[in-house]
């Protein structure tokens, strides 16, 4: 009986990834991509995105849902990259310097975001999303009107023709800085060991962190805020810390993402970061309340496989390129919507069941 329940649980937790594997199996032959090409692309996407996806794990553990405010961290990372591009520092040292520059900005933004989210308990996700739009406005103001004016830039080619404000697209001198550290080639499939080592390091950090006092506190807060508070855990402080760590990790994640791509879309490069990271994590079988490292890695690979194959398959199937493109966006948003609905629905059902059993217990008592 117990075994049956366990199997069922395993099945329900993996139903989303299974569904996506099935869709991919149907779509891959339709897309006419070769296996080697797809493998190469998946490895590239893993290198590019897994760090960003992993940055979402801690706030989920702390019960704050998906941190759509990770965009704040991504912006901090981009500011770091803009400055090192101006100073003309290339390669891995440049990336490290960008990370060093981004860290204090990310900590500050994370602290701010954590404070705001503590005032909006129970609706963290929508608040973090609106917060990311709000900070995007400040970010644009900073780059468009302060840079090159109040903040001196050495390289005039970084600026818009009017003399201040950063250009819309920048070529990064640090492109592939981490990827080229240790590049192995397996029959046409390049594997950037350097970047993978950094991602592995983050995984080890996450596992270690969960075992520390702070990590345990976060899990407790995620389970029940009131109980944790009575147990002497500083709930608000713990929640802020989880957001700060997530924001800092997101800034590193964006740096890794951009070094792989090589160009920076200055003003809206960070917009979709949270959407794609959230969708990847949820495709991997995570929920809004529980997410693991395998969820993140499997999800990234699966989501980007679909993301790659779907529009092309759609194009061959219907003859219209735009349908595939729209389908891809529908699919990204749809995954997040579905996961949010399923989680919330389950939460409500549990609550109703608790209420019903309480009523039953009360009736029996006298």
């Amino acid at each position, binding site marked *: 009986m117990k075994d049956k329940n366990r199997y069922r649980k395993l099945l329900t937790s993996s139903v989303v990834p299974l569904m996506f594997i099935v869709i991919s199996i149907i779509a891959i032959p339709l897309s006419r991509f070769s296996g080697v090409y797809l493998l190469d692309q998946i490895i590239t996407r893993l290198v590019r995105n897994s760090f960003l996806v992993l940055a979402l794990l801690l706030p989920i553990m702390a019960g704050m*849902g998906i941190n759509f405010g990770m965009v704040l961290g991504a912006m901090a990372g981009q500011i770091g990259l803009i400055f090192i591009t101006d100073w003309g520092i290339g390669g891995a040292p440049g990336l490290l310097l960008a990370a060093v520059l981004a860290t204090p900005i990310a900590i500050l933004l994370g602290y701010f975001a954590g404070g*705001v989210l503590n*005032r*909006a*308990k*129970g*609706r963290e*996700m*929508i*608040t973090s*999303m*609106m*917060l990311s*739009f*709000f900070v*995007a*406005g*400040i970010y*644009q*103001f900073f780059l*468009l*009107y302060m840079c090159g004016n109040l903040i001196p830039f050495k390289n005039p080619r970084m600026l818009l023709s009017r003399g201040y404000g950063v250009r819309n697209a920048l070529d990064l001198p640090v492109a592939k800085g981490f990827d080229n550290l240790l590049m192995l080639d397996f029959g046409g499939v390049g594997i950037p060991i350097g970047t993978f080592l950094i991602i592995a390091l983050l995984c080890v950090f996450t596992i270690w962190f969960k075992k520390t006092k702070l990590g345990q506190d976060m899990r407790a807060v995620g389970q029940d805020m009131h109980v944790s508070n009575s147990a002497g855990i500083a709930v608000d402080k713990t929640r802020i810390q989880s957001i700060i760590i997530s924001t800092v990790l997101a800034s590193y994640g964006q740096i890794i993402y951009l070094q792989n791509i090589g160009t920076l879309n200055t003003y809206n490069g960070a917009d979709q970061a949270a959407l794609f990271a959230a969708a990847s994590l949820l495709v991997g079988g995570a929920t809004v309340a529980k997410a693991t490292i395998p969820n993140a890695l499997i999800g990234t690979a699966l989501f980007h496989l679909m993301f790659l194959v779907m529009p092309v398959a759609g194009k061959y199937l219907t003859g*219209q390129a*735009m*349908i595939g493109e*729209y*389908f891809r*966006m*529908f699919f990204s*948003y*749809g995954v*997040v*919507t579905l996961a*949010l*609905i399923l989680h*919330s*629905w389950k*939460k*409500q059902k549990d609550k109703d069941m608790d209420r019903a059993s309480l009523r039953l217990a009360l009736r029996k008592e006298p």
Partner: protein
Amino acid sequence: MVAINRFIKDFGIARIIIAIFLLSLFIVAPIFGVRVDQSINDVIVRFGMNSIMVLSMVPMIQSGCGLNFGLPVGLIAGMLGAVISLEFGAVGFAGIAIAFAVGIFFAAIFGFVYGMLLNRVKGDEMIIATYVGFSFVFLMNIMWLVLPFKSPASVQGFKGEGLRTTISLDKFWIHQLNDFWKIKVNDYWTIPTGMLLFFAFMAVLVWLFFKTKTGTAITAVGSNPDYARAAGISINKMRIISVMLSTMLAAVGMIVYEQSYGFIGMYNSPLAFAFPSVAAVLLGGASVNKATILNVVIGIFLFQGILTMTPSVINSAINIDVSEIIRIIVSNGMIVYALTRGKKGGE
């Protein structure tokens, strides 16, 4: 003095600052060569164009469903109404009447399903509504390409299939409400009486609705669900009614916007309305769980006033276009602020 203090408290300090800012923009406008009458004209027209969409926030806020970030669901119903009206080739008053009828019909269906969905996710309505809105826009993007629309005015000329990105209403029902009883003050200033009257009509309808038994029940569900349940009100039913009403108002709002704008914006265009509409009603003094018609009127007037005046005045004054960024910061800041206030949801 007491009266002044009470007025400040009632009206809210943030609103007073914004109102004073708006007033000062009007005062300095002539100094920088911006015509005041033209500015007033722009504010009034934009007020009329956006008013019903903002009004559509009220029922859902009142029933406790929170801010309707899922506005695109209703807007798409309005777009469907508009393009189907074009399929019939109806012009003038008949054209816009068909658009309203078809739009409201689809909005009722969408609203019903959307309301059922929101009933299953109590406490998380806002984030889910946002994502439902996004997903639905992209789903309908596929539909706009696939559905068999035939009217030569609305399909892409080259291929003859799939709708255009913007469809001109020039030969159909452009300015049908704007031009009704319009008053021409001078070359720069025309009052779109019909559109304003139409908004007043809708606002009175909503106001009257909240005076009826059903309307009171909806308010009760929003302000105290436990009390409402004890009083024998079906919470889920009331919430569905409010969501349907919001969605239908949004559909009407979209058609009013289109007839004034002169074009039907297809594809991603509904995405541009949700956040500004939410920000406008909040700017008018609504909170996450309470909104009145007065909030709507003040909110749109202030929001559209700032939106119209800052680009023209500030650009002529200092030659820098910061208006777009001001808009982003003010509207999103307003929403974040409102979300951190009021009763905590979901616990």
